[in-house]
């Protein structure tokens, strides 16, 4: 569906709170714009849900509305507990899901 990018530190100390930055390419069509030629509304198509799991638990979740900008950027924080995968999921109105996983190394 879309190209996603995630930036997280390669390795973190246990207990450290680190920032994770995410970006996904998506038009985030609001459903309010009109096609200039036909005058018809362009149907809404946005990513309405973004969630992050770490160690199998959701550590960050969000619901998005059309007021979120195109190519949505979100950064947030996570506390390092144990080495393991951090999984990112973006869900579109159509139900399509874009997934990305990064491995967090905790020392």
């Amino acid at each position, binding site marked *: 569906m879309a190209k996603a990018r995630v930036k997280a530190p390669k390795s973190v100390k246990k207990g450290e709170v680190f920032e994770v930055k995410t970006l996904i390419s998506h038009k985030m069509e609001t459903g309010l714009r009109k096609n200039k030629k036909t005058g018809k509304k362009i149907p809404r198509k946005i990513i309405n849900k973004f969630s992050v799991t770490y160690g199998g638990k*959701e550590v*960050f979740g969000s619901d998005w*509305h059309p*007021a979120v900008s195109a190519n949505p*950027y979100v*950064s947030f*924080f996570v*506390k390092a507990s144990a080495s393991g995968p951090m999984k990112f999921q973006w869900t579109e109105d159509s139900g399509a899901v874009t997934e990305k996983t990064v491995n967090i190394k905790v020392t």
Partner: protein
Amino acid sequence: MSVQFNTQNILRRDVLALAGTGVVAVSSIGLFAGDAMADPAAVAKAIKDRIGGKKSMAGNITLELPQIAENGNTVPIAVEVESPMSSSDYVKAVHIYAEGNPAPDVATFRFTPDSGRARVSTRMRMIKSQNIVAVAEMSNGKVHMVKNAVKVTIGGCGG
């Protein structure tokens, strides 16, 4: 990036004029003709639907927004809530609302004690100058709220 909210000059002029005079009302010409617009009452209702009859308090929550946004298509916004983020005392969720967009809701962000820090940054759309409201729901049931005004000068030069 394409212009998502509006490209019509007539509305652009409106917004610029408004930014100059500080008038809050906007005429309904442009792309959103005939569409319902959110207003402070719609935001108040959305917040009430979300938190019920709980009273919201000021403080402990910071909303970082530019005073003047040159491009309403992508305005950086960050919300930080003061909290120990322990298993017994943490921020459950932060909701963002816009008083002048076509719809009051912008986004909801959910945190857990594993977040470590209740801060989130993103980018949002603003069709015109307006107030942005952030509401934080704490694990102990308390609610904190903050409101900031942003002037939008779509495509302008920061005037």
